[in-house]
């Protein structure tokens, strides 16, 4: 009897792809966990987590050509930026606001990613502003006849902003090569989905004349599959796609938030069972890509990398305070 084709094989992914995905997800998780420790130790003023959303992020980003396609990430997208080529060191340098922070030289909060080399466009805090910018970058690709794609990401809360709609409309009008990745993690700080999203996000794409997909955001292969189709469609010049990755925020909104004020512990526990990393590990074990030994080996490697990176960042210097005055205007 023929062996049934595994899900990843149907997607043209081989073992090394799976392990790259897994490593990116786990690295993001471990960096995040370490960040909370630094926060509890009083060393990191602020943490904002990707925990629970690693599958949605890696599944989508895996389709990108780093440094060619553009990405407009939001503050939880550490797994995207790590996958594209930022390092654990970069994350901690940013977390601690050190001079070498590649995102901003210590100017911005952690999670406000930027890399000119990787085409990670500088992100900010105002929720939703990235969408009109992203469609602009997509239009530039189209005007030049290039097959570049723009991935723009946000939480479900960000879809409440007018900017989201204006960008969706523009993308639909000009069949722009842009993918809207909405990571629906069920809350915008304390506001539950039912108080922020009327109808459903995925279903809105139809009103703009392009496809919208709701996908299990905790299943990295499912997200990869949907995103793959979207990237291919965009590269073929057929236009935008909206992906609503349904997932869950496993931590409080940030280190400044106390989520006991607005959600039940049981709900979190339920979702912990659906942790995208555990789930992917299970799949990897099933398809015999990962056994416990190998898993531990990878984890140990990553933990060492994280520890080194964290130490490095801790002992790295701050920028000179007077640097505040520099780089307000680009030189003519």
């Amino acid at each position: 009897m023929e062996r049934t084709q595994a899900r990843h094989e149907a997607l043209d992914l081989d073992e090394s792809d799976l392990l790259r995905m897994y490593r990116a997800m786990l690295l993001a998780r471990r960096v995040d966990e370490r960040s909370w420790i630094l926060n509890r130790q009083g060393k990191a003023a602020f943490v904002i987590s990707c925990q629970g959303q690693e599958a949605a992020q890696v599944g989508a980003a895996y389709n990108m050509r780093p440094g060619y396609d553009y990405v407009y990430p939001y503050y939880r997208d550490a797994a995207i930026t790590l996958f594209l080529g930022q390092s654990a060191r970069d994350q901690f340098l940013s977390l601690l606001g050190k001079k070498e922070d590649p995102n901003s030289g210590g100017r911005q909060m952690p999670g406000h990613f930027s890399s000119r080399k990787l085409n990670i466009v500088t992100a900010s805090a105002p929720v939703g502003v990235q969408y009109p910018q992203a469609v602009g970058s997509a239009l530039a690709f189209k005007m030049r006849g290039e097959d570049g794609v723009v991935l723009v990401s946000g939480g479900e809360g960000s879809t409440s902003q007018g900017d989201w709609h204006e960008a969706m409309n523009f993308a639909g009008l000009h069949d722009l090569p842009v993918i809207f990745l909405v990571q629906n993690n069920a809350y915008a700080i304390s506001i539950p989905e039912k108080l922020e999203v009327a109808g459903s996000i995925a279903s809105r794409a139809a009103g703009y004349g392009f496809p919208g997909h709701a996908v299990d955001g905790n299943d990295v292969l499912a997200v990869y599959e949907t995103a793959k189709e979207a990237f291919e469609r965009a590269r073929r010049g057929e236009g935008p796609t909206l992906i609503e990755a349904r997932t869950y925020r496993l931590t409080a909104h940030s280190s400044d938030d106390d989520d006991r004020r607005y959600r039940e512990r049981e709900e979190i526990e339920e979702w912990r069972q659906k942790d995208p990393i555990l789930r992917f590990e299970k799949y990897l074990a099933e398809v015999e890509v990962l056994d416990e030994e190998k898993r531990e080996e990878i984890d140990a490697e990553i933990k060492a990398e994280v520890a080194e990176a964290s130490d490095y960042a801790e002992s790295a210097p701050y920028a000179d305070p007077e640097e505040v005055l520099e780089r307000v205007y680009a030189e003519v």
Partner: protein
Amino acid sequence: MATKTLLQAIHDGLAEEMRADETVMVMGEDVGRAGGVFRVTQGLQEEFGPERALDTPLAESLIAGSAIGLSVNGMRPVAEIQFADFIPPAFDQIVSEAARFYYRSNGAWNVPITIRAPYGVVPGGALYHSQSVEAYFCNTPGLKVVAPTFPADAKGMLKSAIRDPNPVLFFEHKRTYRMIKEEVPDDDYTVPLGEARIHREGTDITVCAYGLVLYTALQVAQRFSEEHGIEVEIVEPRTLYPLDKETILNSARKTGKFLVISEANLTGSVSGEIAAVVAHEAFEWLDAPVMRLGAPDVPAAAFARPMMDFFVPGEERIEAAMLELARY
């Protein structure tokens, strides 16, 4: 009377107005179930229900715009913008709409809304949780812009704002929420909008300031009296637009030396207007140039603490400016 923080005083002002008038409501992101990211609205949803303490979607233009619509249909909404840095999406609804309903309808439709917004540099806040955005709104007739510093004023002025038939922007310096405490009267009192306050009488120089820098300036002034025998008069505008010119000018004319401090990027800040008014209308009394102190002209405070501290006009810089003026 009990000692209260700025945060408590604002909370109490809201709760009391909601008890007294069932058309008063609060609305904004996370103000309901969670009680606000700074906990200003804590307990209001329990007491007044999910509509009168309304959790809105993440949409500032909607928050301001729907507050307008509520207000013209009988309600008195107090909308919260979670951080003043996030008020720009609501800019159109505030300056083009709320501020103009009354004028453009020749007095038929007025917009009794209050919009609260925590502003100012706070550790860890960085570029987008630190700004002093008040100048954006101080070129807009029809709007009132207030920024009280002390708890008792804040509570009394919040009540005035809620009862005012016009749109009022109410700025609260978030770093002082728990830092500044004072006795706050228990009874139902109001503090009128549009009136500056003299915190300290003095004869040598006038310092005009609000928010955290006012708090700092008051401490410096106390020391100046003891250490240098310099008597500093301190004026707090409390309302930034329209200004209480008279109180400000009286002080300027009395001391002949005027310094205005704010935490905003200096150029284009509200202190330009204040300085221009003083320079014009107290010219004959001035013994020194009108001086200004503010944050440097860079986008906003940085995240890393040393850079943040460099950005904010702190005790040293305030002291230096006051000395320079006194010795002019």
